[in-house]
Each structure stands twice: as structure tokens, then as C-alpha cells.
């Protein structure tokens, strides 16, 4: 029953804005690493011609553990000295899970990046959609309970699975 312990996310890494490396705009070869937990990550291809305003438009499908409260986006840049982290954004799962909107709603989200000193860097733009199995999506709106925490959400989704077991 792995599916009840994690949910599948479609994360489209759209673009970055005003990315800087030691105050200087990066020239090329930026890419993004999406981490759902310390051991699982996915990465985009490198952007070669967007400079400090790279565009990736790349969809990454990741599994998010039910207990996870954050995912991490790391913008890195390939340089002659190896890959360097430009900036990081920590994304609360509650930004795209819970609330009143339909579970499979396509969220457009943007985040401020911080470099390793905690200084403000550029912005990363993404879209996130929670992949919902067909049967679960209709039960969701009937419940209509406002949601805050990832843990509570897990219980509810589990409950939702049971409800939909009843023939409609």
C-alpha cells in the first residue's frame, strides 16, 4: 500500500528570475534540483541561453511522503569549478495541499531564493499539481473540511479512500 504513504506530485519548473552568483548575474547552465526528502531528488536539464532569467518548463513527477511538510528547490549552476548552489527555496506542502480548492488544482507558485548565507537571491517560478486517482478526486469536495497540517491531511485522504469504496 505504498500509494497511501505518499502522494504523487507533478512539479513543472517554469523559470527563474534575476539569479545571481556572488552578486553577479549568472551567465548560463542553471538547473533545478527538487528534493522531497534527503534521499530523493529529481533535477531539470540545464538552461543554456536564458542567462540569469533561465526557462526550463520541465515537468518532474515526484513522490511526496505523506508526512513531508516541505519540499526543497535548489537552483544550481554548472561552472568550471563544478556545480554551485545559487539559491534554495523551502516550499511548505500546505501551499498546494489542503484549503478549499480542488485537490487536483493546478497551483502556480513563486518563491524567493536564499543563498547559503541566507541572502536574498532571485525568484523561481513553478507549477504544482497533486496527482489524484480518479476515484479519490470526487470524494474530496464532499468532505470540504479546511486543512492545515500535512499529518492531518494524510489521515483525511486515507479516510477519503474508504468513503469512495462505497459504490456511488
Amino acid at each position, binding site marked *: 500500500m505504498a500509494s497511501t504513504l505518499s502522494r504523487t506530485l507533478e512539479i513543472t519548473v*517554469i523559470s527563474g528570475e534575476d539569479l545571481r552568483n556572488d552578486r553577479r548575474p549568472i551567465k548560463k547552465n542553471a538547473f533545478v534540483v527538487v528534493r522531497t526528502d534527503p534521499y530523493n531528488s529529481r533535477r531539470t536539464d540545464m538552461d543554456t541561453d536564458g*542567462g*540569469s*532569467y533561465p*526557462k526550463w518548463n520541465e515537468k518532474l513527477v515526484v513522490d511526496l511522503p505523506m508526512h513531508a511538510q516541505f519540499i526543497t528547490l535548489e537552483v544550481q549552476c554548472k561552472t568550471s569549478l563544478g556545480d554551485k548552489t545559487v539559491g534554495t527555496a523551502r516550499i511548505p506542502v500546505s501551499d498546494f495541499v489542503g484549503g478549499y480548492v480542488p485537490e487536483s488544482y493546478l497551483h*502556480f507558485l513563486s518563491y524567493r531564493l536564499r543563498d547559503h548565507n541566507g541572502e536574498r537571491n532571485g*525568484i523561481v517560478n513553478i507549477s504544482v499539481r497533486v496527482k489524484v486517482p480518479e476515484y479519490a478526486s470526487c470524494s474530496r*469536495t464532499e468532505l*470540504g473540511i479546511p486543512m492545515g497540517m500535512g499529518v492531518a491531511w494524510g489521515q483525511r485522504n486515507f479516510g477519503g479512500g474508504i468513503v469512495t469504496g462505497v459504490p456511488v
Partner: protein
Amino acid sequence: MGNCCSDQAGGRAAVGGASSYNPNVPNEAIDQFLKSRGYNGLFSQIELSYSAADLRDRDVLSKSDPMLVVYTKGRDGVLEELGRTEVILNSLNPTWITKHTITYHFEIVQTLVFHAYDVDTQFHSVEVKMLKLDEQQFLGEATCALSEIVTKSNRSLTLDLVHREESTRSTCPRNIGKLTVRAEESLSSKTTTEMILRCSDLEYKDLFSKSDPFLIISKEVENGTPIPVCKTEVIKNDLKPTWKRVFLNIQQVGSKDSPLVIECFNFNSNGKHDLIGKIHKSLADLEKLHSSGQGENLFLPTLVGHDYHNKTLKSQLFVEKFSQSVEHTFLDYLAGGCELNFMVAIDFTASNGNPRLPDSLHYIDPSGRPNAYQRAIIEVGEVLQFYDSDKRFPAWGFGARPIDGPVSHCFNLNGSSHYCEVEGIQGIMMAYTSALLNVSLAGPTLFGPVITNAALIASQSLASGGRKYFVLLIITDGVVTDLQETKDALVKASDLPLSILIVGVGGADFKEMEILDADKGERLENSTGRVASRDIVQFVPFREVQSGEIAVVQALLAELPTQFLTYMRTRDIQPLSS
């Protein structure tokens, strides 16, 4: 797609030119061009066509010979003739062939007035434009707002014709026929062409390296310099460049057959780019060039004696890709079942002054002259109400103590503890005046709760499968106290089908409001580093009573269709076909 939700000004500055074409952000040259012709923001050309049924018979021996005169009515009530149809002989159920084009403006109420006449036989040799209308027999008149037609799913509206005298009397009008008006958006405004262009064998222009070519596509105009509509990026050091795709809206160039001039320049950092060669082609020609797979030679005007001769070059232009797509417009969405839902929140903080005193911003003048709050409600409401079919508007107040309770930062204006909706603009006005009597003004000025409530309604509508877009109007006299909470609420709301209009009344310093309006500065950021994914706030100060206030409201509303389209298009939401 990515462009649509990113910082538009920043993106454009970074990439430059049309290589990052975004349908919502026309390039500056086009913007300039449109503004110089009086178009602002998003506009659509609408074609009006007309038919009538059961007209009165005014001729003795035959049926009426009807003609329709169409006017637009200004805010001052003055009629301006838009055009006349042809005269249709012997018909009480005419369908006129003449159509009129009008530019649709979202932000103003465009009132149309129709007068039907029976044109006597003796005038049939006269051109319709020359006819003296007072010599013709009047068959009836009708009036409506353009937005009433375009929000109909079949884009047509049937009106009862009334007689001029009857329209002022309140007696039941006699049946003197019906007029049907159809509004069709011209397809050209929706069609976008995508092309990939390349050149071969360009000439050397730089001394020590190959040329750095780029293209400028301009629209040729009669006796004038061509107007640039599109520009490619500069490709360094390349004599056979392939540029990134370029996008051209058919309306930008006029039509598919309008002559265009494509010029290839060598980039010079001093701004004096040298012309490598040029070519004259319409979009239709370019399409042919694409399907044939052939190139076409560029030429260069060269001075020979006193005249310019076109010297044909070895260089050729190729069209690697040519495709057309039709993009849904704001009006497509309206006709396709999308609605704008209007919500209002009114500032009841003590800084407005005691409502019983004439210097208060909330003073209700016994003479009936509306105060600043009432004016803002009426002027924004009268435009938006056409786009809201049930005309039930949530209305709140903030910053006051309702009937001896604690200060509330979001109370229902109608006094109910269960529901926040009121009926129509009149309902808002009544709820507002009665709230003034029932609450005591307090403070501070918090926007957070009102925005959160509006966001809640918007997300609940999504959950029930609604296709609605919400517009919250906040009218305030002062600076927000909870700037960070307001930003947090706005950042969260930027992911929802919601736009927020803020009107500042009174003489306070509204600098902080400008911060909320992202197109005047940086993108909004909340306390945890999440950034607004799009601009949803529009702020205007509403100070002057005498003049210019109409323009203020227009400026406030003008961005709404774009914000609406950004939301729909980035999510790939299609209008339902009607």
C-alpha cells in the same frame, strides 16, 4: 506559458525584444502604436449586425422601407452616430447587411442607441449618409449596453423597440417591433502567427568578424515610415542565422495580405545598426514561401547617381516554420460561461471622520450628492454588474464596532450574521448607508481579514466546479496597519481566480498602497519567502471630485481582462463552446 506568471517587466528587460513574446505583453513599439491611436490595454474589434421583426407599417400601399441608425451615447448623454444601415425595401422583418465595427472597452459602459426609420420612396436615390433623418418616419428606438450583448452566450440580444414619446412615459409600451443586435468579435484579433525565420549568405559588415544579424518586421503604411511590429534577437557572428520563433497577431499587422517589410540589420553597440538587406512580403507570401521551401533574395537600396536602385543580393530569407493559432479572448470566455463576480469591502475606520459631520468622508449629503465611497461603488459597480449574472454581491465593512461588539475587521454590511450578499448595486448602497447608522467607527485599518474572506469564497467556488473570477473592491481612506498580513493574504490569493482593486479616498499618503500594486515595484513577498505568482492588485487614489474621476475608474478596471486571461491561459482553461 512560463512567462505569463513571471514578472513581466523584469522578463522583458532581461530578454529584450520579441524573442520572449508574451501575448499579454505586446512589445513596446506595438503598445506605442496602439496608444497613439487611442487603444489602451486590451481591446477587441466587435462587428455589430442587426435584424428586426414586426416593425410598424407606415407606408400606405406597401410595407415599410426600414433603415437603422446606430449611435453611441457618451456619459454626458450626447449621441454620436456610429453608422447607418442600408434601406431594405418592403420589409417588416428586415435583416440588414451593413455591419458596424466598434472597439470594445471593458472598463467603460458603452451605451448603444438604435433608431429605426422608414425611408420614403422619394429618398431612395439618395445615399443613406446624406438622408435627413427628420424627413423620415420614425419607427422606434432601443438602447442597451455593449457589455449586455457580449456577455450573452449566443452574443445576440433582442430589444423591444419603443416610440420616442413612450420611452419617457411609464405606460406599457405598445408593441412596435423587436430589434436583434448581434456582436461578433473579428477573428483577426484572435489569430496569432508563429514563424521561424532564417537567412543564408549574409554579407560581412563587421571588419574583423562576421555580422551580428537581427530582423525587424514592420508594417507598411501609406505615405509614412513603416511601423515596427516585431523584432528578433541578435545572433552573434553568424552569416546563416536561424532566429527564435516570432509571433505576430494578425490584428497587429492589419490582415494577412497587408504588406510587411522585413529588414535584416547588423547589430552595432553604438545603436547605428547597418542594413544588410530587406524584403517586402505579406504574411500570406511568407506562408507560401514556407510551403515551397524556397528562399527569397534580399535586396539593398543602393545609391546609383541620384536615385536609389534595389540591388538584389545573394542573401536569402527562408521561412522554416509557419503556423497559425487562434487564441481565446476575454469575450470568448464571457460567452463561454465565465463570469466576473463583484465583491466590496468598505473602510469604517475612525480616520474617516464622524459620519454626521459634513467634512467626513462618510457624510451622507441630504442633497443626494454621493460621497467618495458611494461614487467609487457606483462607478466600479456599474461597469462590473453586467458581468455578474445573479447580481448578488458580497459586501463587507472593516475597522468598526458593529452594535456594541468588539472591533470587527470583516463584518457583513447588511447587518446579517449569516450571509454577506446583497442584491445589486442598489443593495450595496442601502447596506452601506444603514451600516453607517449601526456601527461605530474604530480602527486600525486591516485588509488581511477581508482579503482572506474573498479568497475563501473564490476557492469554494473552485471546489464546486465554478467558472467564476472574483473581483474585490476595497475602498479605504488610509494606510494599512497590517502591511505584512495583507501581503501574506495577497500572495496566497495570487494563486486563485481573484483580482483586487483598491481605491484610496481622502487626502492620506498612499505610498504603501503603491507597494501592494506590483506593477509599480517589486513582486509581493510574504513572510516565509513565497512570492505572488502574478499581479492581482490595482490601486488608484480617488481624490479629485471635479474632473478626471471617470478616467480614474477606467484605469482601475483596465487591467482586469488581462489579469483574468493570465489566470485562465496559464491554467489552460478553455471557454465552453456555445
